[in-house]
């Protein structure tokens, strides 16, 4: 492998990317492959499969973003996990280390939520400026990159015990579109990564490397080109600009806590949907008093987290749901838009398991006594599924700067979220369906479990056709500042029902193509 590049702080020809997850990590590699020089700044450390720990709390300590954040709003997470609104990763590879691997394309109608759902009171729905036809070739590339099962001639994963319970119940209540999913987890050796060994602990980093993560694919491949330098433990404080209003570089705290300044031709922000708007807001200046890229006032707004929840159930006999791939199981029948159910949009049901330590923490946070402990007593006989559905964007569900400061003296993100009535109706529908599925295979008890700290964080720098409706255009490029891009899930206009990573990757591949062309043309 070629030695990774090392660029000078004063090199103003580089693209600086903030974050190395599914968005930033892919963008970094795709640009490097095209010969573009990239400096990727990652707030966390670098861990590889041999470093991952198959122990829930120990892994959480290794990988999770636990820097301070504050919360408000009526969501239960603000009460139960007030300092931990999201369960995401601070490491090279970002949340692509932690993700479950579910890789679904948006359904065509979901790109145009406002047109297809109509105006929903209290929601700030908008159509994406792009659609399924335009995204199809980029999805193809993303699926090939990730090695997604069930497409491209790649076999699906085998079903685990947890899946078998889920599948039998789903078929018993009449669902048809039931299988082990489209997973970025190898069912056979692919792209120098081995096949899944059914080990569990998908959320703790795959020790086999069978699950795709930028940490051990795109990042080292980008570095091998000699065009990518990744600086870990580099916490970006603000983005700088000149008198013309173009960005010129970033200031960041290095691993020793010293403030550094890296010049840049282009800056791309990919720090997930709390850190990306926080960085733009913290970069306010006399020219941009409300923060960068924020002439619309939309930075931080329309935070979405998917309508989630889980259903666990206990049975007479053991299931041992922790064995095997965590999320290789899906029911898609409810993903359609069918307002006769009492809500717009749809939801997926996907298998899920937690180990005993996390089950105790998340089954019913704050609960105690025998109603709680007798459920855990049946842990071995438990099956589980996760609800992931489209939630409504709302202007006041938003990330703002808190009065709390982090160790660098930077204001942290406050995350305000309250469920929309559509979210509640969808969740209740999904709880009832999930419970019916398990009862159909003899569940002795069903447990409709509240949402966890958010893993899907979307929408706080949304994409819009018109500059006044959002933060970035159809390429993730700031409406206000042509050499400033957003490259993560925060650019989502709406959330759709699907796990977001495949779409984040497809958008990043597409964005790399756009940036390289615009650089070659001298437009940015």
């Amino acid at each position: 492998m070629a030695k990774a590049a090392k660029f000078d702080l004063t090199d103003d020809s580089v693209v600086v990317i903030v974050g190395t997850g599914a968005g930033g990590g892919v963008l970094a590699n795709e640009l490097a492959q095209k010969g573009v020089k990239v400096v990727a700044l990652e707030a966390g450390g670098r861990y590889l499969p041999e470093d991952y720990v198959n122990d829930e709390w120990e892994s959480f300590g290794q990988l999770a973003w636990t820097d301070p954040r504050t919360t408000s709003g009526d969501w239960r997470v603000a009460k139960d996990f007030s300092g931990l609104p999201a369960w995401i990763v601070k490491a090279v590879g970002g949340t692509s280390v932690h993700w479950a691997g579910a890789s679904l394309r948006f359904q065509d109608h979901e790109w145009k939520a406002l047109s297809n759902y109509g105006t929903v009171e209290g929601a700030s729905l908008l159509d994406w400026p792009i659609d399924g036809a335009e995204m199809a070739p980029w999805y193809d590339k993303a699926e090939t990159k990730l090695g997604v099962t069930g497409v491209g001639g790649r076999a699906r994963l085998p079903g685990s015990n947890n899946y078998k319970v889920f599948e039998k119940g789903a078929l018993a209540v009449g669902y048809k579109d039931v299988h082990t999913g489209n997973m970025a987890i190898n069912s056979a050796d692919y792209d120098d990564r081995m096949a899944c060994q059914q080990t569990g602990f998908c959320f703790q980093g795959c020790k086999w490397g069978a699950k795709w993560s930028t940490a051990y694919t795109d990042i080292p491949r980008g570095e091998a080109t000699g065009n990518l330098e990744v600086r870990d433990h580099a916490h970006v404080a603000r983005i700088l600009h000149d008198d013309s209003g173009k960005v010129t570089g970033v200031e960041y705290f290095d691993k020793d806590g010293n403030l550094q300044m890296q010049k840049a031709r282009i800056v791309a922000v990919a720090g997930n949907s709390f850190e990306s708007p926080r960085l733009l807001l913290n970069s306010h200046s006399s020219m941009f008093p409300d923060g960068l890229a924020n002439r619309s006032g939309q930075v931080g707004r329309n935070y979405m987290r998917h309508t989630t929840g889980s259903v666990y159930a206990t049975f007479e006999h053991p299931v041992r749901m922790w064995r095997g791939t965590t999320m290789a199981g899906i029911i898609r029948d409810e993903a359609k838009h069918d307002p006769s159910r009492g809500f717009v949009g749809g939801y997926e049901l996907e298998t899920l398991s937690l180990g005993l330590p996390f089950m105790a923490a998340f089954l019913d946070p704050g609960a105690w006594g025998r109603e709680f402990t007798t459920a855990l007593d049946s842990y071995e006989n438990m099956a589980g599924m996760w609800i992931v559905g489209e939630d409504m964007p709302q202007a006041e569900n938003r990330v703002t700067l808190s009065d709390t400061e982090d160790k660098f003296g930077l204001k942290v993100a406050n995350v305000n979220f309250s469920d929309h009535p559509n979210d509640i109706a969808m969740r209740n529908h999904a709880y009832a369906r999930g419970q019916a599925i398990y009862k159909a295979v003899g569940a002795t008890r069903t447990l409709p479990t509240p949402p966890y700290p958010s893993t899907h964080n979307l929408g706080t720098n949304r994409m819009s056709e018109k500059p006044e409706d959002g933060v970035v255009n159809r390429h993730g490029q700031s409406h206000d500042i042509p050499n400033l891009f957003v490259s993560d899930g925060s650019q989502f206009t709406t959330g759709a029902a699907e796990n977001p990573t495949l779409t984040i990757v497809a958008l990043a591949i597409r964005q790399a193509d756009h940036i390289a062309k615009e650089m070659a043309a001298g437009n940015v």
Partner: protein
Amino acid sequence: MSQLRKQGLTRRALLSRAVAAGALAVAGPGFIAAPDAAWAVEVAAISEHEMATLLQMTRDIFPHDRVGDRYYAVAVKGYDSEDQKADVAQGIAALDAAAKQAGFDSYLSVGWEADRVAILRMIEDTPFFQTVRGGLVTGLYNQKEVWPIFGYEGESFSQGGYIARGFDDIDWL
């Protein structure tokens, strides 16, 4: 747990203290032990009564009838510290006061779990209760030693995962 001390633990002392401690654990000089002396935990900063009450309280918060006292003792031993002793003393005193209000001599003297739970409901919004409950979530369930009692197998990477060890072995569907 291994520093089992038998000195001073006559059968008579055991029995009398067993009564005082609600038959759960025996309060001895500087430590408490199971009535059958199968295990013991020393106390240095807090009193035997406070530790015994904490143990009963944690059993009542997260009751698992197949999980022995020794696991709960591990979960609460951190409260036996100079940093914590004032909060523990205040918290246990409040719990005993609630028990008295409910017509009992002390929390440990309450015979039925349902009555103890009713007393805990009286204090469940206090910082002391919330601290004990919250700490127990990891203090109890993150002990690898308790996992087998629940059937949980923990990591499997070292054994090559479950691909050949039963990831799909369900036989009752």
